[in-house]
């Protein structure tokens, strides 16, 4: 089943009189349960593609479908509703609210979805356990390490049980051990919950974890390789290589 589909997608940024074509007629389909990397150098369009799939931005032309729904022309509120319901985000800079504790950061999407306190408490505790941060629930981001903060971000992204998690350079601000921990957490959750992960990266250490690698260059898909790290042993070997 397709979680996300892109048809002839283009995005042009206009700054003053300068036009920049970030994406050029891209076509892509993401299936349920994938663990896919969008790779490419800076300016290749991978972040733009992620933002368009995640309804953070609107295409200049083309279509974007999430869970079968055309999200290309939704208004701002409709896109917010879509993100709240079906999509989770993990950012390079962790993106936690500094005045909220780890518990409260993870709880925020559930609050926005109008869940009752009992449901929220049960779900947040479940996610804290999943990312192994039960003992840090009351800590604020400035009291957590980079890796811990990113795991809180992962928990927040997953707490509403979205169909799709989009991660933009999730390990870029982490050292190697923390980066490894974060990627292993993402892999484990992908396997345990079946949630689809799509992450943008140019870090070869991270690409190793992906089962599918879509390479972009100059706003177009250059290659699309599947079956990578499909063998669990290969997965383990890939992990040990980092």
């Amino acid at each position, binding site marked *: 089943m397709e979680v996300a589909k892109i048809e002839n997608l283009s995005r042009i940024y206009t700054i003053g009189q300068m036009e920049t074509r970030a994406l050029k007629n891209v076509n892509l389909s993401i299936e349920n349960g994938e663990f896919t990397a969008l790779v490419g150098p800076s300016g290749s369009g991978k972040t733009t593609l992620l933002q368009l799939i995640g309804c953070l*931005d609107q295409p200049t032309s083309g279509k974007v479908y999430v869970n079968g729904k055309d999200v290309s022309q939704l208004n*701002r*509120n409709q896109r*917010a509703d879509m*993100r*709240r319901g079906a999509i989770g985000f993990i950012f390079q800079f962790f993106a936690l609210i500094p*005045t909220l504790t780890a518990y*409260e950061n993870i709880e925020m999407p559930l609050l*926005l979805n109008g869940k009752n306190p009992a449901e929220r408490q049960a779900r947040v505790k479940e996610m804290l356990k999943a990312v192994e941060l039960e003992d840090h629930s009351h800590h604020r981001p400035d009291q957590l390490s980079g890796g811990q903060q990113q795991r809180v971000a992962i928990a927040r992204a997953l707490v509403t049980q979205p169909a799709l998690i989009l991660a933009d350079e999730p390990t870029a601000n982490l050292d190697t051990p923390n980066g490894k921990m974060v990627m292993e957490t993402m892999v484990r959750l992908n396997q345990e919950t079946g949630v689809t992960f799509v992450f943008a990266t140019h870090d070869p250490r991270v690409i190793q974890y992906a089962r599918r690698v879509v390479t972009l260059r100059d706003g177009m898909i250059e290659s699309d390789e599947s079956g990578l790290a499909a063998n669990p042993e290969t997965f383990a070997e890939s992990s040990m290589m980092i």
Partner: protein
Amino acid sequence: MIQLIKMAYRDLGRNRRRSFFSALALGIGLALLLLMASVIQGEMRSSMDMSIQLQSGHLQVRSVNYDPDKNSLAWEDLVENPEQVASQISSLAPVKAASPRLFASGIVSVADETAGVSILGIDPASEASAPYRDGLVSGDYLTADDREGVLIGRKLADILGLSTGDTISVMANTSNGDVDEQIFTIRGLFATGSPYYDQTTLIMPISKAQAITQTENHASTIFVLLTERDMTEPVVAALKSDKLEVVTWRTMNELITQVEQMSSGFMIVIYLIVLGITATVIVNTLVMAVFERTREIGILAAIGMRGSRIMAMFFAESTLLALGGILIGLVLGGIMVAYATYVGFYIGDFGIEGLLIGDRIYAYLTLTDAVSLIITAFVVSLLAALYPALLASRMEPVTALHSGE
């Protein structure tokens, strides 16, 4: 909602100094307005009370021909058999005191000094004359049969260099258009609290005033005090007559009422200016918060927070700032109003005919004024949050997320 308020509280705590000074600005503005409102209200009430006690009474019964601006002494313009009329009026339930009074123009002379005065003939024993009895600062009070004694205001005495026991010459108009002059002895000095009144009024028993002005058995007016200020209607209805008119304190104090209305309108403008200035502080605080937290706003939008909820976040911060400012304002304002209420401010000699002003202003804060100011301050603070809240809610998530990169 609780989460929103919790976030707002913590967000304000990120820069406690800035938040405190924002609230303080609102608090000082509110405190000053409470003081202004209470001083104006106190002064208006004081003027009205003073005018009722000294000049207008709650009612006056006078001839339909009488013009108070001319102080006519012609018999056809005066009340005949005033004691009888006063006695009839006194029998009505809401009436506390009814006393005949005679007004005449005069000149006081002593050595080379002269001063124009209003001669006021009173019944010294009447309850209506209590302000003069209670305001005596030296000497003795008058008796009804005193043919040579007068009371003058302390202010007039100071100007003419007079004291109790001194003799003065008083020249008064008479009913037939002539002038009569007689020598009087100052029995005592009075101080009513209104320097203007004290400077321009000379008091004698009404029988003597009638004699000097040749208006025997006549009075300018029957001065009436009621048990309740607002009981004028039934008394007016009971006193309807072809020859006499009944004038209420509201009519006689139109100038005070108009000044009060004008000052109320003026005060609203002052309120808005002061609160507008303090609101700009809140706008500045919140706009800075929006720009400092642009990326955070992008995060919240990215996880699905709608623009309206982002707006609500900033309104929550503005609400907390407003509540803090109002609390500060009530404390500061309470202290200042309490001082002004019990100690007052000395303002010296003010007042004109028709608008008596005491030499000391005391504040009087009404619940209506306090509540309306608090609500206005709160609403202005919320309005101040509108621009920053709109700014935050309309940010594109993509742009906000990448700000600062």
